[in-house]
């Protein structure tokens, strides 16, 4: 398997083609966060509904490359139903992983683990993390 095959895993392609929790809501209870990276064409919005310390719902709308679109979708799926605490831990672990820093291997990243292939592509790290950064900001 070459580097590119490490990047374009089946799960990623599957999410790219069938993004989950797609479509934004106009509900003020959701915290909404949009990050644009116009020079790459990335434009990602994440909406989060937190109730009683739990991530009740995540909605997303992402355009851009496959990695950024898929990572928004995977994020949304993983996060729904987590405690805010847990969610933050997963975000930090994920971001450490894709940015090639040390990360807590005991944290289960579930499907998000497939984004580890991005490490070999420093220029794509942003694609893989943009949705996660937007999500994290919503939790603060």
């Amino acid at each position, binding site marked *: 398997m*070459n*580097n*590119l095959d490490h*990047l*374009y895993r089946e799960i990623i*392609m599957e999410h790219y*083609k069938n993004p989950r929790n797609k479509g934004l809501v106009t509900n003020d209870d959701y915290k909404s966060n949009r990050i644009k990276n*116009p*020079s*790459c*064409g*990335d434009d990602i919005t994440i909406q989060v509904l937190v109730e009683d310390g739990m991530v009740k719902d995540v909605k997303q709308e992402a*355009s*851009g*490359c*496959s*990695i950024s679109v898929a990572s928004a979708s995977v994020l949304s799926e993983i996060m729904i139903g987590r405690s805010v605490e847990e969610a933050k831990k997963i975000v930090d672990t994920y971001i450490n992983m894709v940015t090639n820093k040390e990360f807590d291997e005991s944290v289960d990243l579930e499907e998000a683990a497939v984004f580890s292939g991005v490490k070999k*592509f420093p*220029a*794509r790290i942003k*694609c893989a993390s943009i949705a996660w950064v937007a999500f994290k900001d919503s939790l603060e």
Partner: protein
Amino acid sequence: MKENPWIKDFPQLNNHLHYFDSAATSLKPVSVIEQVNYYNQELSSNIHRGMYYESQKATELYEEARESVANFINAQSNEIVFTRGTTASLNLVARSFGVNHLNQGDEILTSELEHHSSLIPWQYVANKTGAKIKYIPLSDQGRIALDAFKATISKATKVVAINHVSNVMGYLTPLKEIIAIAHEYGAVVVVDGAQAIQHIPVDVKSLDADFYAFSGHKMLGPTGIGILYGKDDLLSEMEPIEFGGDMALDVMKTQFSWKESPIKFEAGTMPIASVIGLKAAIEYLKNVGLDNIHQYTKDLYDYLIKKLNELDGIELYNHHSDTFIFTFNLKNVPSHDAISYFSEKHIALRAGQHCAKLIHDFLNINASLRGTIYFYNTYKDVDVLVDTMKEAIDYFKKLGF
């Protein structure tokens, strides 16, 4: 297909890289690298104010570089201002000339083909002065046509801010005609020549350009050095925008005066090594000959386009580039996915908007891949590029894009 005689002058090409990113920055020939070294190793002293040999010599080379640039574009040397780059040059015009000459109701005419550096300094001026930005409608191909320009210019037009060659489409603007018309309306024309100077002979006098900006690093020179040509009378009446160092004439406690143009615009210690390297770059370009560069790159470009026309699965946005920039996407593949494939194969292209968002809006796309043919590219490079395109098309298709 004869051997490319210039490759040996470019040490970076030893790296098995297929370099198609010359529109972003060009490679540097040995003579430029050595000239930078000569300053750093032998001279390494400040200019204009030292009397010992090294400082004298550095000053001499610095001013010779100014003459060399002037000569290259048929200007006088006092019309050549050194800056950090095209962006700094264009901002100097906007901040000094633009802010002080435009008023509410005036218009700045520009195009969606501009690089951001030729556009947003003027948005700033518009914002500051109450002038309005107006766009010359582009042709279907995305070109600036003379008719459209004539239909848009008016008595209110005070500045035309326009590229000589587009960094996305490689189109040559009909500059001479545009400038003549602009002058009939009393407008000043500020030309972004960053993508022209390395490809075509530029004669500012014959063009009658009021300002003309370009960068050393795109014309085989070092990074950190840019040029602003301005007509003597315009530069003379303009205020400097940076103060300090050698540009000051007399300094008193509450006021100061400045020297004449161009020195008044060169505040503080300038990028001396880069200026000295720039001179070597111009000499190299002259030795190769812009006409030879044009002929060689045109042939190679034609070869590429013929191959691309046989290819399914790519979308080419400019079929007739005048300076051999080719901008495209793999069908259905976001450009940032595609670029990773090329990068893995040591093919240097660029993905994104290339600091030119409006032309992407015009093309109705988010981003694109851009390559450029320059004279150190080879037929082999083109073969590898096209083969890789084919592979990439297959690869992404199989993945399900």
